[in-house]
């Protein structure tokens, strides 16, 4: 990093401090499993969350008054990428990254005082009730209804793909509060649901082929939550969703994670963990993916530079979501290829985890958080001005 003269000496020293912290404070066995793409339990993640919280590092990007650090964008970027590179488990993003910025901006004082400290400490585990059976990429078509009845909202409907809902204390969800609004986006509100204390909430597992229960369906059957659980204003939920989905763009390509996976791949090949012939072909493929990672990192750093200068970022984040997700899939795929048919074994394969399973799990990254197709639509419309009837003149692609 130093010879590239991209980060200052102080920033480079800070990254080293983060590195040292992970090595000194993270359970080595957890770290090993993260690096080898083996499962880490929710409890182990909670312990790591608490460790970061004690250091004051659970939510560096929050405002200082709520427990953030006031770090520059460059430091925030380095913090996240260094943690990932070093094999730290990722903290659940729902409370820390997704809801908190909305609450800080649009929540009532009481909501902030009630929820933010427990998100920060990790005491409350949150889930996000957005997707529905009929509303995936077309999220605005969601149908779960909420009707105000006195000082309570009554919720009816079904959410789907609700990650860790089975272990969550709280949910923030999108509900339809005006079914006849002129545009579907205009009739949506955001509500907070206490998953433990609310009756009429039924969480059912969705079993994926990886054999793990990580995601769920959530049924609401006349579930009642207090009127005060509305976030911001009624029918403005879609605007807040844009804030949610627009967060954490700085690290959207997951450069640190990719670097870690690349290192793991190289280690495996170096230690003879690959099978069969074709080492030369494998070497070329590894070089190609490493070169692609360099491009993604360069674009991430360019976007970071924009943030650092206070400029409005362009569509780098969409490009980086697209390309970063693709890279993650190529890396796990290469691990599988390197291992050959041995990767087919379910369960442990000698010193290796079931690499095919981890590769399979990675298929989700081009689907969630705005699928690759949706990202392309956003760039086509927003950056290139395509698909709009009014667009007639060319617009340069100046960086």
């Amino acid at each position: 990093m130093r010879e590239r003269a991209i980060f200052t000496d102080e920033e480079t020293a800070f990254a080293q401090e983060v590195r040292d912290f992970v090595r000194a404070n993270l359970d080595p066995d957890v770290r090993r499993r993260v690096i080898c793409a083996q499962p880490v339990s929710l409890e182990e993640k909670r312990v790591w969350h608490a460790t970061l919280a004690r250091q004051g590092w659970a939510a560096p990007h929050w405002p200082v008054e709520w427990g953030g650090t006031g770090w520059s964008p460059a430091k925030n970027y380095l913090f996240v990428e260094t943690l990932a590179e070093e094999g730290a488990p990722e903290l659940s993003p729902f409370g820390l990254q997704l809801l908190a910025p909305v609450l800080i901006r649009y929540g009532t004082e009481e909501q902030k005082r009630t929820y933010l400290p427990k998100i920060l400490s990790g005491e409350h585990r949150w889930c996000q009730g957005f997707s529905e059976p009929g509303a995936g990429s077309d999220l605005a078509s969601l149908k779960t209804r909420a009707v105000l009845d006195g000082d309570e909202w009554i919720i009816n409907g079904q959410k789907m793909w609700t990650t860790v809902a089975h272990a969550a204390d709280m949910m923030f969800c999108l509900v339809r509060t005006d079914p006849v609004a002129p545009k579907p986006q205009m009739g949506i509100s955001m509500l907070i649901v206490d998953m433990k204390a609310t009756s009429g909430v039924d969480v059912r597992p969705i079993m994926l082929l990886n054999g793990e229960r990580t995601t769920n369906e959530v049924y609401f059957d006349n579930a009642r939550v207090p009127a005060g659980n509305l976030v911001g204003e009624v029918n403005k939920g879609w605007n807040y969703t844009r804030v949610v989905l627009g967060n954490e763009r700085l690290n959207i390509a997951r450069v640190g994670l990719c670097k870690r996976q690349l290192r793991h791949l190289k280690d495996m090949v170096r230690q003879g963990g690959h099978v069969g012939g074709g080492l030369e072909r494998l070497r070329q493929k590894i070089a190609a993916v490493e070169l692609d990672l360099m491009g993604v990192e360069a674009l991430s750093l360019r976007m970071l530079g924009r943030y650092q200068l206070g400029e409005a970022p362009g569509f780098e984040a969409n490009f980086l979501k697209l390309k970063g997700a693709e890279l993650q899939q190529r890396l796990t795929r290469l691990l599988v290829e390197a291992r050959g048919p041995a990767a087919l074994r379910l369960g442990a394969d000698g010193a290796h985890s079931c690499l095919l399973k981890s590769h399979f799990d990675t298929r989700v990254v081009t689907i969630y958080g705005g699928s690759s197709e949706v990202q392309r639509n956003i760039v086509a419309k927003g950056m290139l001005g395509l698909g709009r009837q009014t667009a007639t003149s060319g617009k340069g692609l100046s960086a």
Partner: protein
Amino acid sequence: MTDMQDDVRRMLAEGIGRLLEREYRFDQREAMRRAVAAGQGLEASVMWPHLEELGIFALAADEDGAQAPATLGHLSVVAEAMGRSLAIEPVVPALLGARLAALCGIGGVLADGQRSVAAPSLLYGSDSGFLAQAEDGGWRLSGHEDLWLGGNDAQIVLVQAADARGTLRLFAVAVDHPGVTVSPFQLFDGRGAADVALDGVVVRDAALVAEGDVLAAAIERIALEAGLLHACDAIGAMRAANTLTLEQLQTRQQFGRPIGAFQALQHRMVEMSLVFELADALVEQAVAASCHGANPAAWRLACGALVRTALSARQVAEETVQMHGGMGLTEEYPAAHCFARLTSFELLYPAEEWTERFSRLAPLEAAA
């Protein structure tokens, strides 16, 4: 975080931008292409004297500038502008010739408007095609190298020649020196080039420009800078191609609507923009890392930049023609010229070859 731009760079970009808008519209560029086809050289160029006036060649030839970290960044702005306007004039080759001379400490000798062009082996980091034999008070040079970009307009050729022991030396030879044959031709992209042969050319010791450590350092650095400046040219050409293609999608009507209304084409245009952005960001970073000279970190990024730019160039070139339909094949419309320019780059800097070089820089066997 440090800022990769500086004020000189911004001013240079604005100055060249204005110049190109005024003196180098596509029809003016085409006039120059036809001039080269007719065997004319820089005497036909309207733009060249203005570029000299802007001081870009002096910037490259400045020996103090050889050590100034910002210089490569400044030249990269020039190279990108040339690519963007698909310039026919051999600006990058002339900059590199002046730059190599400066790195060897003879920039001042050649600065007087004399155009030196470095041998392709120097620019692409391949083996030299020339041999040098010591003679009384001088050297006898033989050999040939093909495809000198801008060689048709060179006054001085800079050749690296090996003696019987394989020791390399750099010589500056005037093209009108007895025994020097310069065979000019035009590339498919319209630029001029030449094959250069030396047949027992006898030069005095004064023609020996550099040897030993000075030469080794200069060679290492000029290959790095050549790659990056050619990549900047390709970045400029990609920018032009993407702008044209986007206009095409917005204006060309088929099936009762602009073809850009079709999602299949939208997504392909997005991919073109994406591969452009990746290459642009990586080249910018590689240029910043290479300003202080050649070192392993700079080479690592440069290899990455060259590979990415070659892959992106090919994709952008092919998609540009495809989305222009038949118009993309015509001489009168710039799309095909973008294709030609970009194809030149990716054939001169093949992605596979530079991936190989990258692999050799950081062998898998070495500990991470």
